[in-house]
């Protein structure tokens, strides 16, 4: 008997709990040659500012043990080009499309939302209040409960679509930030964004990233991300989407067990462009062999 993989975020029903993480799946279409996008629970597209953005100078990437540090700096095409060229193509694909919303100022977040609100084919906004690669030393709204509350509040006040607040792991008390987002009316929470990190080339005495610091992702961070997902899912009532180092279906299931209703696959997409589809298959296979009729029944089943 094939298991029911669907999950319900309340504001959004997903075919399965596997989304692709923003910035690791381009605008989605880049992956069409490698997997059937309609098999995904959803796609979170690359972070969008209102206008096109230059991003940071290279080198932008450095590999570490089990991880990847990136300092892309959110280079991108901006909302207009996205709405005109990419969104129509994405609409043809039968999967949930979420837009990762960025802004240099609160106003920019608002303008992005107001602009996209006028275009069809977007299931929800993921508010990227946690990118470590834009301001100095990784500063971003998600580093404080107040900053998070204020931004989520104003986003909710204008948006006609659900808002998912994407949190930063570079904080002392992730639960306090999550509660602030919930109090501000966020429909859901996704975490974690990358951990502020750096690497040095001893020979040249230079940072390996032109931006000096960047965001660490990949399997190396999974234990930290899983811990934070567990803490947040245990503390808030709104649905939580977990991510960080998911490479396999079993990794994804760990997130569900600690309380995430859905997950996002990130860095794995670079290593194996079919990874997100494989994760779906592996979750299905696991449920089948263990006679789990509904994957949603696994959510929050941790015995702790």
């Amino acid at each position, binding site marked *: 008997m094939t298991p029911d993989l669907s999950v319900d975020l309340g504001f959004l029903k997903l075919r399965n709990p596997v989304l692709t993480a923003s910035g690791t799946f381009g605008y989605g279409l880049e992956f069409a040659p490698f997997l059937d996008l309609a098999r995904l629970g959803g796609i979170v597209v690359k972070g969008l500012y209102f206008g096109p953005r230059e991003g940071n100078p290279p080198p932008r990437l450095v590999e570490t043990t*089990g991880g990847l540090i990136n300092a892309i700096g959110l280079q991108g095409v901006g909302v207009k080009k996205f709405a005109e060229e990419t969104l129509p193509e994405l609409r043809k694909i039968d999967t949930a499309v979420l837009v990762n919303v960025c802004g240099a100022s609160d106003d920019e977040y608002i303008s992005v939302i107001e602009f996209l609100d006028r275009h069809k084919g977007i299931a929800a906004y993921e508010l990227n209040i946690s990118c470590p690669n834009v301001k100095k030393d990784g500063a971003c709204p998600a580093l404080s409960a107040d900053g998070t509350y204020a931004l989520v509040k104003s986003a909710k006040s204008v948006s006609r679509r659900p808002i998912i607040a994407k949190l930063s792991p570079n904080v002392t008390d992730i639960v306090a930030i999550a509660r602030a987002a919930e109090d501000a009316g966020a429909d859901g929470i996704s975490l974690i964004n990358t951990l502020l990190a750096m690497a040095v080339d001893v020979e040249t005495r230079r940072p390996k990233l032109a931006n000096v610091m960047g965001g660490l992702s990949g*399997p190396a961070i999974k234990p930290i991300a899983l811990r934070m997902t567990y803490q947040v899912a245990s503390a808030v009532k709104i649905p939580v989407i977990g991510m960080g180092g998911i490479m396999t279906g079993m990794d994804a299931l760990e997130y569900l067990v600690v309380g995430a209703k859905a997950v996002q696959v990130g860095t794995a997409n670079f290593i194996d462009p079919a990874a997100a589809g494989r994760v779906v298959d592996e979750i299905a296979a696991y449920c089948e062999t263990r006679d789990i009729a509904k994957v949603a029944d696994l959510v929050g089943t941790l015995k702790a």
Partner: protein
Amino acid sequence: MRQDARARIILKQTWGSYHLLRLESAEIAREAAPGQFLMIRVSETPYPLLRRPVSLHDRDGSELEIFFQVAGRGTALLAQKKEGETLDILGPLGKGFDLKAARRSKSAVLVGGGRGIAPLYFLGRELKAKGAKVAVLYGGKTAADLPVRKKFEEAGLNVACSTDDGSFGFHGFVTGLLEAEIRQVKPDHIFVCGPDPMMEKTATIALAHKIPTQISLEAIMGCGFGACWGCVMRIRKGDGGTWRKICEDGPVFAAEDIIWEKPA
């Protein structure tokens, strides 16, 4: 552009730190063109994590060749692969060389330094097949860094070599050979792949002589197919230059469009 998770290694050759692998991968081979590359999974474990980019060295029917030098962890693992084993590869990636532009060229000069010679064999054979007169300039640190010289000759491509230490051929950089070559017969097209300083120098020479020149760039790559935006360099597009993806818009660019930056 596709994934072949089980490309079989049907031949392996080794010269010191240089290795050649011939792969059976019909679909990717069919689509392949000179200057394009593969992203290769060098380990099933998360260490190293990322795939490694390697140029297409040759294509023959359903077979592909790669030629690489061990530079670190990933290429060292790749060098341990044996005949009969399979590789997980993505390809063909990138735009490759613009052969249309080169088709009219009566005399093309191919300039390769060290591992940078890799894409020029596939290119040289295609140009020759298209009837172009091809001269290959092949530079290395020492005589031991010119392992595929004979291979070019056997393909009927004449090769002039240079070594930094003078142990073989012209004593000096391959750019010296290029200047000499230009003095004799001014080529109407130049193709280059090698270390950044060598490519930058070649660009300067070519631009000075107003010779159309295509350069194959390298960058650290996260994905190889345009999704991570990690591989950019500053490239002119009429404009003053913007960060463009080496993997998708390149890796080959016209010399005049490349803006060489000092390392961060």
